[in-house]
């Protein structure tokens, strides 16, 4: 707005100066004209008086003046004045044009009286003429040969001498006003023609800066405005392309970062968070949006991450660290690198977090498993080789003793075989499970269970255990693998038998529970301390290593039970306490049912 006001002021100043100049010139012109006009009238008056005077001087001295009326009338008409020639007494001798001027006694008139008194030209202004307008009367005494012979008298309306002046002034005012108005008009026009398009362009540029996309006006004009407009339009187009390109890149980058499995945190030189992706926020238990812009040490206290960011360089080795959130403990693999801008200056650092918890856990499991297996395998093998060595060394061993040794070797070999079988079974289950290759068929659950029961019953009896079975009367149809289910029942029953001292009892019941089959194997044996419950289904886990190995257990029985249950879409649960027996419950979905709830 100030710009416009300035332009107004400039226009005003220009118009004012122009006006003042014009007015001054016109004023001087008017005065000159005015002077000229009134000068002419005065000259006319004086000329008429002079002529009248000369006439009077010539004729009034005679006793018989000549014909004066005509010359006086002639003069009056020529000068457009009232004229009168008076004798020495002030009586009109001749007058023109109006008859009123013929009034005979004119000596009383002021100018005549004054002329007579002063013997010089006298003037008087008083109302006169046909309308009573102010009139200037002049009287000049006429002398001839030293004698006053008369007066020359003239009258002229005052307005005639000044009329030109006021008319001219009105004209002058009119011209000035016109000049002022046209100056303003031209200035406004110029302003409009020049600055309005510029302001329009400025408005367009502003809208572009705000992200709008108005079309540029004036691009087709041939003058400088058109050049400017075309340049602006071109710039707008190129800017838009670049911005779109940057936006697209940014969206891509964010999508890449957002879709990564690893967590990414980027900080600037002041250690403020530039970017933190979803996974990183989850790992650290923060929200990405509230962490942006904060110093990184307010977002996380994990020393390893802060150090990694602080010492980021391309050669820094990755480090692994354990962190714990209230929900779980993680192992994170942390890799950091510096952030460099286009001119290779350090702008900050970025750190990548990889959750290797599961990886390490599996590695640990595998390590433990291998250690366990080799230990389990070594023991019977060592026993066998020990005993065969003894036999080989002692050539004279009595047959009975030899027989006992061979018996022991047989037992160990059996044990080894059982272990290897169990291992194979478990590994088959696991790999088949992974690829879902187990040969499932529709079968009656009572069949594998009955088979297992029949196998276990004599063993229980021999040990002096009460054995009770309860199976339903109708078939219990499931989708499964007969062999695995037999193994499941076998393992549960053999555990029950092994861990229940003589005089105790074992019971197996198979019932329907909603759309699941429920198999419960209960014993009154030594029970399992709740401390071990969450680990007892692990491979080779034993509550008391000494006792269970002595009984020939492989440590894999329950692992197989759990795995069979899981691969059939069911699960197994345990209730037990020390010296209060154990109860294993296996839930399996009936055919047509969905997987069992956990």
């Amino acid at each position: 707005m100030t710009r416009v006001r300035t332009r107004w002021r400039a226009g005003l100043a220009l118009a004012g100066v122009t006006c003042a100049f014009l007015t001054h010139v016109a004023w001087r012109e008017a005065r000159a004209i005015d002077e000229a006009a009134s000068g002419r009238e005065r000259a006319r008056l004086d000329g008429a008086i002079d002529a009248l005077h000369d006439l009077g001087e010539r004729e009034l001295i005679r006793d018989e003046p000549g014909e004066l009326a005509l010359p006086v009338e002639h003069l009056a008409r020529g000068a457009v004045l009232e004229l009168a020639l008076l004798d020495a007494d002030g009586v009109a001798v001749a007058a023109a044009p109006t008859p009123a001027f013929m009034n005979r006694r004119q000596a009383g008139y002021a100018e005549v009286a004054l002329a007579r008194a002063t013997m010089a030209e006298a003037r008087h202004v008083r109302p006169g003429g046909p309308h009573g307008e102010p009139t200037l009367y002049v009287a000049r005494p006429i002398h001839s040969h030293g004698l006053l012979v008369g007066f020359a008298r003239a009258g002229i309306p005052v307005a005639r001498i000044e009329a030109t002046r006021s008319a001219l002034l009105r004209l002058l005012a009119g011209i000035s006003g016109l000049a002022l108005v046209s100056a303003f008009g031209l200035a406004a026009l110029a302003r409009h023609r020049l600055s309005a398009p510029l302001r329009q362009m400025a408005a367009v540029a502003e809208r572009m800066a705000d992200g709008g996309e108005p079309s540029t006006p004036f691009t087709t004009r041939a003058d400088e405005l058109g050049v400017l407009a075309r340049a602006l339009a071109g710039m707008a187009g190129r800017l838009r392309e670049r911005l779109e390109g940057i936006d697209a890149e940014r969206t891509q980058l964010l999508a890449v970062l957002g879709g990564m499995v690893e967590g990414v945190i980027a900080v600037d030189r002041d250690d403020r968070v530039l970017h933190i992706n979803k996974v990183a926020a989850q790992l650290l238990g923060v929200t990405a949006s509230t962490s942006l812009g904060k110093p990184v040490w307010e977002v996380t206290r994990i020393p390893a991450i802060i150090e990694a960011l602080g010492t980021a360089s391309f050669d820094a080795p990755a480090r692994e660290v354990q962190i714990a959130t209230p929900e779980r403990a993680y192992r994170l693999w942390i890799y950091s690198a510096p952030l460099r801008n286009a001119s290779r200056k350090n702008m900050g650092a970025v750190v990548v977090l990889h959750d290797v918890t599961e990886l390490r856990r599996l590695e640990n499991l595998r390590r433990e498993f291998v250690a366990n297996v080799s230990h389990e395998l070594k023991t019977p093998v060592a026993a066998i080789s020990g005993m065969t060595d003894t036999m080989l060394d002692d050539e004279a061993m009595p047959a009975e003793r030899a027989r006992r040794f061979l018996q022991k070797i047989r037992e160990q070999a059996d044990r080894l075989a059982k272990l290897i079988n169990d291992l194979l079974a478990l590994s088959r289950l696991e790999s088949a499970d992974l690829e879902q290759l187990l040969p499932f068929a529709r079968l009656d659950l009572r069949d594998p269970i009955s088979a297992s029961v029949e196998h276990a019953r004599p063993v229980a009896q021999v040990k002096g255990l009460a054995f009770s079975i309860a199976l339903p009367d109708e078939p219990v149809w499931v989708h499964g693998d007969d062999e695995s289910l037999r193994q499941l029942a076998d393992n549960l029953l053999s555990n029950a038998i092994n861990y229940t001292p003589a005089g105790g009892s074992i019971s197996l019941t198979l019932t329907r529970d909603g759309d699941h089959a429920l198999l419960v194997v209960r014993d009154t044996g030594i029970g399992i301390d709740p401390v071990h419950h969450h680990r007892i289904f692990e491979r080779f886990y034993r509550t008391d290593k000494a006792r269970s190995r002595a009984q020939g257990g492989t440590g894999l029985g329950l692992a197989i039970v759990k795995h069979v249950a899981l691969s059939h879409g069911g699960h197994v649960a345990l209730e037990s306490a020390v010296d209060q027996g154990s109860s294993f419950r296996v839930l399996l979905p009936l055919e047509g049912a969905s997987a069992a709830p956990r």
Partner: protein
Amino acid sequence: MTRHFERDMMRLERELLAIAGMVEEAVLLAVRALIEHKVELAQQVIAGDRAIDLKEVELEEDGLKILALHRPVAVDLRFIVAALKVNNDLERIGDMAVNIAERTTELGARPSTSDRIERIRAMSEQVLKMVRTSLNALVRHDAVLARTVRQQDDAVDDHHRKMYDEMEQAVRANPETASEALRHLSVSRNLERIADLATNIAEDVIFMVEGDVVRHRLGKRAMAPVGSPEANERR
């Protein structure tokens, strides 16, 4: 705030949080080493204490330097004073963690058979939570969060008292377990001390934010939320 002052203050806060992170990690590791019987982890904790001690000294010097150079007032002064106190408390927590780690190395890799491990596990979870909450309150300058820490201290004291009783019973029943029991008791005491120090840190945060010194005020009034009936009781 001149730029130098602002930069020094930021550095102080960053270092304070760095030592907080180190101490938090030490406590985590010490607890884990104890519960999982991992002697190497315990040794890691013991070895890492030197860095914590060095950092404490460094931080104290930086804090005093700021006080001398910039002579801050009002909220800035409270921040520095609180930071120096929290710094000391953190270093002491670090020492407690070392104590726990030493007990772990003495106990060795033998798994414990007693229930006490469960109580220690529960206690240490509570203590870790208190430490984490008080440090979160410090980061966020959140006095409301800080006040919740004191309420959790009672549960820890309760655990510790029960440990005493259980110790006594266990040793009476089976004098063989005395050596293990004594070490468990020491761990419990150290955990209880860590909880107290976490409460101290929370009190320092309240001072920093509100200018109110709530130490040693009797009972619930001190840590009650502002405006609650307990806070308005006459002393």
